[in-house]
């Protein structure tokens, strides 16, 4: 079984995307053998009222609920964020919270995001923090120049000790090392994907993937493709060459996310 933590549906304003509706994304998932994918609304990232995007997403995936794990994009600096978040979880059945401080222009340690993230912890809802949507070097001149601020995340881990986090689409081997101390002694767990992690020994005798395992632990590594923005194959090159045992492969491809989302 394969579960993907990081996919999108919706319009991207800065480059033409293919397969960015439910059927297109499903065709990619079928091609790559992805059984289930956590998915969020790109439209929600860009609408002032993110809830409109969340509602669109639920409508879009309504015929394939068994294949998608919908994540709610909430801007905690916008009116009625708590009401929207509760509605997403309690009425729409959304399974996770996804935050974009670098698009919605706030610091994760401000009171409202901390309150939202604590609430997510109380409700057993994991918080997904993508480090970026696309690489900063190639962004449109109207796009943000920022990525996820790991310093803010480090503080957040102690401010919200009961919340589970997934940090994706960044240099996870470096991030896990930086966040190791802050991740310890919490009830909540911290997970990482390996979408930007090398499995070949190119610039040191240990691979970046081995470094990620060392600092995060194999129980906290998950599969994330960033489809439909990125090709799927590089992720499978990593799986093919990471040298994982059958047991560890099962954890990375599905077991860890099954546990996190209680699937």
């Amino acid at each position, binding site marked *: 079984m394969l579960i993907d933590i990081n996919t999108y549906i919706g319009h991207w304003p800065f480059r033409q995307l293919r397969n960015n509706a439910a059927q297109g994304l499903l065709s990619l998932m079928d091609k790559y053998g992805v059984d289930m994918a956590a998915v969020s609304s790109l439209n929600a990232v860009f609408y002032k009222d993110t809830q409109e995007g969340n509602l669109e997403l639920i409508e879009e995936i309504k015929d394939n609920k068994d294949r998608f794990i919908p994540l709610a994009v909430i801007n905690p600096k916008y009116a009625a964020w708590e009401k929207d978040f509760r509605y997403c979880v309690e009425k729409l059945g959304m399974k996770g919270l996804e935050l974009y401080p670098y698009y919605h222009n706030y610091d994760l340690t401000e009171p409202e995001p901390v309150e939202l993230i604590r609430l997510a912890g109380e409700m057993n809802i994991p918080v997904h923090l993508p480090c970026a949507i696309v690489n900063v070097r190639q962004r449109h001149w109207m796009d943000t120049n920022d990525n996820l601020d790991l310093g803010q995340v480090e503080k957040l881990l102690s401010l919200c000790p009961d919340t589970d986090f997934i940090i994706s689409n960044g240099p996870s081997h470096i991030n896990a090392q930086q966040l190791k101390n802050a991740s310890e002694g919490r009830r909540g767990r911290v997970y990482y994907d390996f979408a930007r992690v090398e499995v070949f020994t190119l610039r040191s005798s240990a691979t970046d993937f081995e470094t990620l395992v060392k600092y995060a632990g194999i129980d906290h590594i998950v599969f994330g493709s960033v489809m439909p923005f990125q090709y799927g*194959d*590089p992720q499978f090159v990593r799986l093919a060459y990471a040298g994982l045992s059958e047991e560890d492969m099962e954890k990375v491809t599905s077991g860890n996310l099954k546990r996190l989302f209680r699937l």
Partner: protein
Amino acid sequence: MINYTEILKEEKMKLFKENKVVNWHEHIWDDGSGKLNEELCDCFVEAARKAYMDVVVCSLPVSGGEPDPDTIKRKNDVIAQAMDRHPGFIKGLAFVNPGYSREAVAEIERCVNELGMIGIKLYNQYFISDPVLHPVIEKCIELDIPILEHAGKLRSLPNVQPFLSDGTHFAKAAEKYPDAVIIMAHIGGGGDWQWQLKAIADYPNIYTDISGSVYDEGIIEQTVHYLGAERVLFGTDGSFSQGIGKLLAANIPEKDKIEILNNTKFARYLERGAK
């Protein structure tokens, strides 16, 4: 549901296993004392062989400031040591700083004629269209060797590479020197790749390699669309998983993939050099 990891390992990687694979963009590192880091070099070669690469073309550029001729010689000597350690598998490109015009030309001659290197590597010290490069480009035309230059159209701020060449600089250089063989480096590592492709599309003596960590869906299809597979080279630049994966994923004919893996126009360079 299918197991794509197994399919990739057992079926798709046959593309690499059954065809000659020439990686035109990689680096080998020194150990801090100026000598080849042999352990890293051997790890790298082992990884490259594991990925079915047959030849890897390497350089050791200085990525900032105005490196002087002595520093540059030491860097190129490291590449020569790597070529000696893994003969036939590692081929070398000579890094030069065009700002030291006379010394740069002499270093190219030393590296090609004495050390057996097969081309040159330029970094971001000058735009490739800057007249200071003319003697260097003319020497490369005379020796019939390719020029691989670091490239990018970066949108992120601050701009830490003020003389980084983008596609428009390459176009100017190619227009002045239509006989030069110029590789605009890493289409997947130079920011706005759509800009880069559109800028060089009409200049047949500009090539690109597919290296870089970016593997946006469509990047390989668009590269082949704008340039044709005959102007595209396989490369990784420190990103094996991405370089291999994006070529495997691309929706282009198999014959184009094979051409990219071992670009026939560049085959003659590989036959050169005693090392």
